[in-house]
């Protein structure tokens, strides 16, 4: 064989652990990356608009749609009566979420009908012409209102208990009871919800959906149409952001577009306006944490009893697992010798709250960090000292049991915090800030260093599975498909790196293809930070199978031993011969080798018994820590983040560039949640912060003025994950609590750090000023 036709390289382009750029970066910057609204529309494509309730809770007395039907361009109007299958998109199977309301409405903005028109503008205009009569029923929109009205729970609460919390709380030297309100959060994915449904022959339908969960959209479309799953194909190439907001919330739009498309035998696109999107889709759950914490004079926690109540909205959606995860993280990084935790998933007359990066975990941690603050201010100590005192211990200590009876086996939090404390010069800066505050009447500063320990795995054990499909074509080009979806996190890039690495070929040879239910079935949502853990392993499994066959073929054809077949960069060494990869693949085809494989992976070791509150819900934990410094204005409550330092553990990073992107982005998104992002409902139960003009996510000028982010380069996952990496999507979000607590310290300065500010989230300038005023009067 002519060896002069190719040059040899010591390493492939794009192996695992390389800081590759996002596979679509070039297309992003040139505007050529197609989102669903950019796909050329089939001829005759129709568009949809939504008719929404303008009552929070009411019986529907009459619905007059005559003016809608006769409006210019309108082709048809759909109500709940027009759904051929089930008028239901409840992802839980509880049948508590109608696609279109028929008898009553349970939140302001609930969809009642949908309009199909020739243009989107016509559909939107027509939707405003309905005349609907309501009979009002009592409504409540928040946790207080729900409690006052004896609201039902949307799912059974969860209880975690270990030890003898009640007795130990009574016995402990010190005890503090308190309450904290934690606000929700709108996802504000830049690309709004969208679906494009294209009808086919028989019952077939293809739906392009901006969803993190194509399989669920497939099942929902089949469910509302009353057809089999095998008639529905759902495709997703990329989303313009998801953050959990497209885990179940895309169902509505896909299902309605599908119903209209099948009814009219025309393609139908459904892209709601931003205001409608924010009105009709769920958000992060607001929480109220009522805590009772017992401790000693050193600040060591003896026992905790806490209730985590949540605003769930009118239906269950994902509120069960979200409130569960809040409890799973109500320990933050701390060992509670005795503990009792209860969730309270309350029904409210608001849109049904849903998944959002962290999935209840951040709220759980925030409650825990409030308890640490309480202890620190009560004892006149630095909260960091209290944190370190209460960290989980190393294996073998008697301080490794979580409230859910899983042992923490891979604990690196002490090392992470110690390294960060030293590298960011925490102690000296804290002293400097205390000195500064003593001489600054108006501007005050604060600093806080907070830890993250985040459990990785879906707590619903069945979801921890994934599939992939890999083909090699005769020219040596590789086709990769898997069940994960791309929403910006770089999952496609990471999984392609796994495949390139396995075959030792340059990554350009690996074609990343749109996620579709037709290639890989029964997938889980790309959620719970699990995308690369699950799909990376599944793709590895597929590639490994083909690789085995190729090795077998090489042994047969070249009559060599397995040990004499080696995959070198873009070529193989077989015995004494060097063969280019594509030449070899073509030979394998002629040798009738099966060059396609379906891969599968399920996470080992995990199990969970919710009734008993016992098990091992998490395969492993991701860790991190952040230190933030802020300045506040005690006359107005305004603030700035002066500096943030982060040290985060992603195991052995599959792609350090993408992982740092996730950390920076997650942190800033978390900062938004805890500072400027505030959801506000009026007395009628109408959400008034339903657009970027009224709902304020962070801008470039809000990010920390100095922002240092590092990976814990020494870290390796203790479990055999893909490349010993760790999940990265959600944990860094929690790092933003450092900003919140730094603000809290700056507030505490006005009462000489002797009173816990009990700041609620989000810490808007208003909440900060009001806390300052409260402390001024106490201090």
């Amino acid at each position, binding site marked *: 064989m002519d060896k002069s036709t190719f040059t040899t390289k010591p390493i492939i382009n794009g192996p695992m652990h390389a800081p590759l750029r996002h596979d679509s970066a070039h297309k992003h910057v040139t*505007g050529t990356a197609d989102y669903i609204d950019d796909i050329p529309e089939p001829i005759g494509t129709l568009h949809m608009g939504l008719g929404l309730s303008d009552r929070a809770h009411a019986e529907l007395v009459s619905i007059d749609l005559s003016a809608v039907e006769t409006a210019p361009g309108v082709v048809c109007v759909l109500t709940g009566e027009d759904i051929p299958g089930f008028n239901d998109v409840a992802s839980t199977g509880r049948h508590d979420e109608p696609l279109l309301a028929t008898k009553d409405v349970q939140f302001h903005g609930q969809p009642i009908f949908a309009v199909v028109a020739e243009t989107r503008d016509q559909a939107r205009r027509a939707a405003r012409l309905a005349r609907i009569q309501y009979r009002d029923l009592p409504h409540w929109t928040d946790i207080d209102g729900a409690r006052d009205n004896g609201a039902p729970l949307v799912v059974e609460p969860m209880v975690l208990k270990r030890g003898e919390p009640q007795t130990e709380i009574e016995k402990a030297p010190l005890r503090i009871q308190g309450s904290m309100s934690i606000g929700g959060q709108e996802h504000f994915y830049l690309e709004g919800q969208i679906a494009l449904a294209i009808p086919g022959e028989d019952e077939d339908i293809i739906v392009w959906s901006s969803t993190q969960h194509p399989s669920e959209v497939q099942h929902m479309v089949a469910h509302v149409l009353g057809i089999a799953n095998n008639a529905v194909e759902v495709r997703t190439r990329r989303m313009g952001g998801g953050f959990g907001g497209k885990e179940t919330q895309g169902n509505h739009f896909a299902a309605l577009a599908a119903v209209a498309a099948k009814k009219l035998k025309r393609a139908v696109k459904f892209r709601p306006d931003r205001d409608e999107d924010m009105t009709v889709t769920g958000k992060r759950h607001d929480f109220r944490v009522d805590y009772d914490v017992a401790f000693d004079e050193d600040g060591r926690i003896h026992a905790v009893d806490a209730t985590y109540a949540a605003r769930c909205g009118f239906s269950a959606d994902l509120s069960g697992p979200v409130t569960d995860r809040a409890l799973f993280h109500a320990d933050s990084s701390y060992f509670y010798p005795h503990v009792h935790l209860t969730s309270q998933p309350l029904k409210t007359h608001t849109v049904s709250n849903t998944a959002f990066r962290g999935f209840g975990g951040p709220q759980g941690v925030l409650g825990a960090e409030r308890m640490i603050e309480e202890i620190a201010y009560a004892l006149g100590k630095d909260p960091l000292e209290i944190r370190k005192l209460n960290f989980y211990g190393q294996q073998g200590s008697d301080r490794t049991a979580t409230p859910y009876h899983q042992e923490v086996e891979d604990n690196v939090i002490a090392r992470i915090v110690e390294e960060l404390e030293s590298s960011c010069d925490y102690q000296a800066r804290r002293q400097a800030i205390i000195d500064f505050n003593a001489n600054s009447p108006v501007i005050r500063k604060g600093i806080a260093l907070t830890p993250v320990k985040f459990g990785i795995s879906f707590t619903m054990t069945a979801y921890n599975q994934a599939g992939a499909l890999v083909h090699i074509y005769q020219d040596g080009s590789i086709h990769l498909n898997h069940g994960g979806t791309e929403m910006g996190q770089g999952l496609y890039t990471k999984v392609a790196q796994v495949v390139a690495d396995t075959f030792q070929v340059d990554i350009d040879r690996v074609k990343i293809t749109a996620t579709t239910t037709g290639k890989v079935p029964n997938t889980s949502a790309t959620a719970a930070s699990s995308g690369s853990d699950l799909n990376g392993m599944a793709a590895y499994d597929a590639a490994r199978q083909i690789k085995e066959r190729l090795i077998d073929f090489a042994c047969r054809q070249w009559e060599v031993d397995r040990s004499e077949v080696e995959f070198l960069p873009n070529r193989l060494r077989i015995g004494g011969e060097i063969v280019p990869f594509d030449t070899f693949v073509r030979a394998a085809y002629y040798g009738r080798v099966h060059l396609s494989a379906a891969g599968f992976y399920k996470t080992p070791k995990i199990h969970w018994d919710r009734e008993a509150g016992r098990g091992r819900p998490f395969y492993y934990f991701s860790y991190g820590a952040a230190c933030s410094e802020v300045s506040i204005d005690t006359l107005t409550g305004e603030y700035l983040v002066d500096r943030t330092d982060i040290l985060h553990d992603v195991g052995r990073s599959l792609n350090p560039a993408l992982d740092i992107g996730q950390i920076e982005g997650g942190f800033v998104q978390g900062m938004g949640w805890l500072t400027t992002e505030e959801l506000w409902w009026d007395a009628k139960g109408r959400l008034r912060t339903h657009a970027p003009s009224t709902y304020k996510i962070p801008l*470039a000028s809000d990010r920390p003025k100095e*922002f240092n982010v590092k990976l814990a380069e020494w870290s390796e996952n203790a479990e055999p994950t893909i490349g010993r990496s760790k999940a990265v999507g959600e944990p860094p979000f929690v790092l933003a609590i450092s900003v919140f607590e730094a603000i809290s310290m700056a507030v505490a300065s006005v009462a000489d750090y002797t009173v816990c500010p009990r700041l609620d989230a989000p810490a808007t300038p208003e909440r900060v000023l009001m806390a300052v005023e409260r402390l001024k009067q106490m201090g």
Partner: protein
Amino acid sequence: MSEAIRFILNAEEVTLGDFGPTETLLDYLRLKRRLTGTKEGCAEGDCGACTVLVGRLTEHGLRYESVNACIRFLGSLHGTHVVTVEHLAGRDGALHPVQQAMVDCHGSQCGFCTPGFVMSLYGLWLSNDAPTRAEIESALQGNLCRCTGYEPIVKAAEQVAANRPSSLFDPLERDRIQIMAKLWSIQSENGTIVVTKDGARSIIPASVAAFAEVLAEEPKATIVAGATDVGLWVTKQMRQLDAVIFINHLTELQSVEVDENGITIGAGVSYSQALDKIADEIPAFGRLIDRIGGQQVRNMGTIGGNIANGSPIGDTPPPLIALGAELTLRTHSGRRTIPLEDFFLSYGKQDRLAGEFVEKVFVPRPRDNSHFAVYKISKRRDEDISALCGAFNLRLDDEGKVASIRIAFGGMAGTPKRASHVEQALLGQAWSWGVISAVRDAFDQDYQPLSDWRASAEYRSLTAKNLLTRFFLETAGQGHELRRFELEEA
């Protein structure tokens, strides 16, 4: 009279006659031209995903500005050069340095906001060789990203600043002369343009005099300068507008004149156009303008429009009233000049007669021995609407007593309004901590603010009082306002 507008879209000359007065540039690009690189994120000028550049001839030559295509009406594009992200890459497909820097710095994740960021960064790159961090952040105030946390995007802006390959590479540098010639040629065809579709008309008057004539004939027509407010009537409230008069091209309304008495600002002057001169003359007012909207909104929106729409939360009326600004209203037959504060009659009602339009505002220069400050309080520092905005203009006599004081607030009442009780209580008094403390509560007589999603009534009242305290501290020489960047950095 012509029935079509003419403009340049990327490399193509366009003559367009069949459009309604509320059709947006974004829909035209995406639906009619299939230029789908420009995205719709919010349709209200707040997220920047639809950012494009619009070039127009000014006294300083051809000037490109970032704008929000989602609230830019087609009727406002006559005689301009519209540049979309599709125009950036080289003819061989090579990335523009701005695009390359975004790729190299990992500035995109989901990518949906990215074309808008690229266009904002491109606008900055064209106008600034060495932007400071403050200038970069200012240029990006109108672009939301939910994935990256912005750090890599700011790094991209820094990295690309000095990277200026051959001007042949950049499409706007390369074609500047030809583009200017084409725009001159379009502008030289004098005459009012009226484009009619389904009975609704876009009217593009040839001159201010023609504008006055048209308005006299059609006093109910909607006047659109920057469309940063009217745009939302259309995209969000779905209002039908039957006749729209576009005035953004009338350079006669776009002069900013500075003399020894003060600044005269034409009603068509955008915030961006006004910024430099206002910042030179009245630095505190300049800092406020940098916090109005994002760069795209400041490039489109006008101070005249901010006044004329009468909003109680408009940001420029409080400082203008505190400075004693005077408003000139014009009709086809004459003018009248009134104190600006008298223009705002009650919520939603202004002293603008049928056929009248705002022509200019005169801002007296603060006297040498006076103190002036304006404070905007909002949930988010940049690109947010004020919860409240307060302006203070104080002059002390030789004995340190208050010789004159004007205080005006937005967000505290149904209109921008002076704090006359507070002013009265301070007048003639010693400018001292004791007096300030005693006078604070007089704000309660001046304002009974509302609670809404931006702030509660309690917060607004308390903060208004505290801003008086801050102003007092500042006049005593102590700076107490949090600033992300000090002036010398900016």
